[in-house]
């Protein structure tokens, strides 16, 4: 059978679709006019708690609020 169809350039470079889609969305948000841009930047904010698990138990959780620029 034919091999897999040509992959998109971003996947060939090791990027996942979700990363690609989020980059596209960020670029569009950065090109907006003013009142919309501020609202858009608030959509980019993330706030989450992350903890590593060992032996079935969670270690201490860290809270993170990454800015859009990572």
């Amino acid at each position: 059978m034919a091999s897999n169809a040509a992959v998109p350039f971003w996947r060939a470079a090791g990027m996942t679709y979700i990363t690609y889609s989020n980059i596209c969305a960020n670029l569009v948000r950065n090109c907006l006019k003013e009142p919309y841009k501020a609202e858009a930047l608030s959509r980019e904010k993330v706030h989450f708690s992350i903890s590593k698990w060992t032996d079935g138990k969670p270690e201490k959780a860290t809270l993170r609020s990454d800015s859009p620029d990572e």
Partner: protein
Amino acid sequence: MVIVPATTGQMGVLPGHVATIAELKPGVLSVHEGNETTKYFVSSGFVFIHANSFADIIAVEAVPLDQIDANLVQKGLVEFTQKLSSATTDLEKAEAQIGIDVHSALNSALTG
């Protein structure tokens, strides 16, 4: 009728369209109702066309064209064209290429 920017090209969708899933590229989505047309720029995403003549557009960002700032688009295009020529790793090249694709699409949306 709705025209969606699929990765395989502009796709027109009318009631009765065969059920389809298509990946979208950054581009203009235009909704034609009677004599009115409403245009949105979608950053990327998917369109799901169902067998019952309903279609869903899934996009992270979809903005009316008049919310886009032409100067920022031009600046972005120049910036990413430069990034592409100075990129070394595959990942940097891919990111720069994405920047060029998105800003070119934004530019065509504003001038088209």
